């Protein structure tokens, strides 16, 4: 027997633990997750990096492409442009979202629930939507173009405005969490020590939300610098890195230069990601079990001002979405404002027609179902397996890596990897499968971290109890882990669905005529000058995402009532 042979081979008293059937199955799963991550993240990135070091014939040429890149001002100016846009947008978004979050958490304003929902509306729209909307509002024939004082919306102004709309909810969610976890006792102490409101703000409030604020800054910066939809639609002649990749690959078929720009774009994204990881690593729990939640006290004029502020922001958000909705019904902007449905007749336009919308629905559904299954199971195995530390650590790293990879870069990397003639997985190129896989990978990290957080909240002895009762782990996984984590599982699936509906960047290089997607169709229609149909398609995406979101809320409530009865005392 193997165990006897081991006992003889090793020093008499050193114990080599035997693996149970559970251990072997879990390790099998972990290896599968590892192979999945290597194939979907690591190898494509490697292929992209090596592509940037090759000439058109595929021979290794070292840094020649990079030399060419940095000697072409038209190309490397984009670096400055991208950084400027990202920095300016970040300042605006963070300032606006901070006050909004402060109003939601630290005032007694009215309609908090409604304002919270309104602020999250941009999440349901593709990033093209605000850009298209701004064309109608501030474009050459825009209804309020006078507000720009003669400046054109096509360029940095339009990009920044669009990015602020698009990143606002992301910053808001992080800062609401940071502001909501304040310890009320610190404020009582500040009052009793006679600190004024300004001093209290700088000595209590700001230090308390420091980590949330920093995290929001990095998230917004990364979203803006990697975004493709907004600069594509409204950027005009103003080039940024993300649109450069598109131009090199689609416009000039220069894949090597596309890879070079991708590497250049990867650098700030990875830097922001690493900086955020390092800073968040220093964070210690701000809230202890003895903390007292901060309760704002009513102050009439202050609360009114906060309500007014949120109402203004809310009005702008709804106005931007409303503009696109309205424009999508207009016969011929701005000359004939009759409301008609002709712009929804996608089948007579280039871009993919209604089929692209149904493709998007299918793609989003597959992404939600398979993505949630893969990500949650993977997170469970990595989190709960016994031993196998090095492999688990490596896979943990691979699971958070996609966060640092811009969608455009991932998409291009997939071309290089999956379209390689020698790749046995070549057959998925141009199919729905590759779109689903790239989308799962693109949004893997946030989903993975959500799953890990939920799993960490489970008693770590559940698995010990199961094994002592000789119940295989997969039974406990099905009977206990999945039901208890159902809210997190639903959150992950809805996150994947909505993002799969709205994403452009990762899929733009990978769709085929049979698998055109709604967001890509909107982009192509806009490119062809069909702006109203593009707005209509964006609105279809918005309606689909909103419907699914509402269904999710209802389903969560129903589920909570039926199967989560144990949560209530």
């Amino acid at each position, binding site marked *: 027997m193997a165990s006897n042979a081991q006992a003889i081979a090793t020093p008499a008293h050193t114990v080599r633990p035997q693996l149970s059937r559970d251990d072997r199955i879990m390790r099998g799963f972990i290896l599968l997750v590892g192979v999945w991550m290597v194939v979907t993240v690591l190898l494509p990135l490697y292929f992209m990096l090596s592509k940037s070091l090759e000439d058109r014939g595929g021979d290794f040429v070292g840094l020649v492409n990079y030399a060419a890149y940095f000697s072409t001002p038209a190309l490397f100016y984009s670096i400055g442009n991208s950084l400027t846009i990202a920095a300016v947008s970040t300042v605006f978004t963070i300032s606006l979202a901070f006050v909004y979050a402060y109003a939601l958490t630290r005032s007694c304003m009215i309609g908090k629930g409604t304002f919270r929902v309104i602020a999250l509306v941009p999440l349901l729209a593709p990033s093209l939507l605000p850009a298209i909307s701004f064309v109608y509002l501030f474009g050459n024939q825009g209804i309020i173009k006078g507000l720009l004082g003669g400046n054109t919306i096509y360029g940095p102004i339009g990009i920044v405005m669009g990015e602020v709309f698009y990143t606002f909810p992301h910053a808001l969610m992080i800062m609401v969490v940071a502001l909501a976890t304040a310890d009320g006792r610190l404020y009582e102490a500040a009052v009793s020590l006679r600190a004024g409101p300004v001093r209290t703000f700088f000595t209590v409030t700001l230090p308390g939300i420091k980590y949330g604020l920093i995290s929001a800054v990095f998230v917004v910066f990364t979203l803006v610098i990697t975004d493709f939809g907004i600069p594509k639609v409204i950027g005009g002649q103003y080039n940024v890195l993300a649109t450069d990749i598109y131009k090199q690959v689609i416009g000039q078929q220069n894949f090597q230069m596309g890879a070079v720009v991708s590497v250049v774009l990867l650098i700030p994204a990875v830097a922001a990601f690493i900086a955020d990881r390092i800073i968040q690593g220093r964070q210690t729990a701000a809230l202890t079990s003895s903390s007292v939640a901060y309760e704002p006290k009513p102050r009439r004029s202050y609360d009114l001002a906060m309500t007014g502020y949120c109402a203004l922001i809310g009005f702008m958000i709804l106005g931007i979405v409303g503009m696109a909705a309205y424009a999508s019904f207009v016969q011929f902007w701005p000359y004939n404002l009759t409301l008609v449905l002709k712009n929804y007749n996608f089948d007579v336009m280039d871009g993919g027609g209604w089929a692209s919308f149904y493709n998007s629905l299918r793609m989003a559904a597959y992404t939600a179902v398979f993505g949630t299954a893969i990500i949650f199971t993977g997170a469970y195995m990595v989190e709960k397996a016994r031993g196998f530390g090095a492999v688990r650590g490596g896979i943990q790293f691979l699971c958070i890596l996609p966060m640092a990879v811009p969608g455009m870069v991932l998409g291009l990397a997939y071309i290089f990897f999956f379209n390689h003639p020698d790749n046995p997985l070549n057959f998925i190129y141009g199919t729905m499968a590759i779109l689903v896989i790239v989308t799962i990978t693109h949004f893997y990290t946030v989903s993975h971290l959500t799953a890990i957080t939920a799993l960490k909240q489970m008693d770590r002895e559940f698995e010990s109890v199961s094994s*002592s009762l000789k119940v295989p782990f997969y039974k406990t996984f099905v009977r206990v882990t999945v039901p208890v984590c159902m809210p997190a599982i639903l959150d992950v699936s809805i996150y994947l669905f909505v993002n799969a509906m709205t994403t452009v960047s990762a899929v733009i290089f990978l769709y085929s005529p049979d698998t055109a997607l709604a967001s890509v169709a909107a982009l192509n229609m806009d490119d062809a000058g069909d702006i109203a149909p593009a707005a209509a398609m964006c609105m279809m995406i918005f309606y689909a995402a909103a419907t699914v979101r509402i269904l999710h809320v209802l389903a969560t409530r129903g589920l909570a009532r039926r199967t989560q009865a144990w949560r209530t005392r």
Partner: protein
Amino acid sequence: MKPEAGQAGAVRKPFLRISDLTKMFGTFAALRDISLDIYEREFVCFLGPSGCGKTTLLRAIAGLDIQTSGRVEQAGTDISALPPSERDFGIVFQSYALFPNLTVKKNVAYGLQSRKATRAEIEARVAELLVLVGMPEQGDKYPAQLSGGQQQRVALARALATSPGLLLLDEPLSALDAKVRVHLRHEVKELQHKLGITTVMVTHDQEEALTMADRIVVMNQGVIEQVGTPLEIYRDPQTAFVADFIGTMNFVPGVVQGPGRVRVGQLDLTCQIDGLSQGTDVTVAVRPEDILVPEGKPVSENAFDARVGDMEFLGSFFRADLVAEAMGEHSLRADMSINIVRRLNLKQGDMLPVALPAERIRVFPGQ
């Protein structure tokens, strides 16, 4: 007194035998060369401060964190390397670890369902177990609807459901309110006695160990300090650590003067000294309740006068600081009954003749 499990064990074969067990975490030795025999039907407590290795030892026995080296044998079989699912034990954790989305009945039946038992058999067994832990009516509730004490009973029923040969309890009472804890202590002990199941419990609470265990294993920094019945551990601590950890103890430095004599300050005390040569520095230990107030009766042995310092009122007795000139700057804490304090009309500053009975003094090497 407790049933003499230790003596009975001498003729029985050990049920659980741990030999030369060491557990390393990196370069840190959490357990060092632990050897221990546990006998059938015995209730053994691992007692020690946090970080002493008691939970690590329990988890090694369970196979949850397998030792680096050493053997664990259960019922004559070497289980050293086996994963938990191939060992024979039931376990209860401090956190209860009840499955929150399953009812009490389903929790208790959890381990039964994977065995070849009919639904009726399972139901009968679950009902029997719920009666056993005193919760026959609560089967359809969810864990969140139960109090902490009730949850721990369910966890116990779940662990016992498959009739394991060994019951492991990891600080099972530590998360409970003081009153519930005292009550449950008694019930768990009674249940264990009734079922006759060999039980190992980890605790940092000496009162829990003293009241529940047949034998206590006192641990400190990864080694066993002493193994014995609660009375042996309390009356006859083998090391200064045990003496200090269990109950309250006065420690004063002394020097061995000769056979049976030790000098503390200017005081020569008669006591038992094993194998310490003259001139060795020692620590002299005596419990507060062992300090005698002769009340006029003539006592020649180890008697001296002391001044009463602070008197702390602890309900049924006073704990007083005694300062004796003869002992130098060291003071002793002594427990005095309400009666003595009243009879002698004791108050702070009074002089009082006291005595230390020779058989109650313990001497440990080193200062």
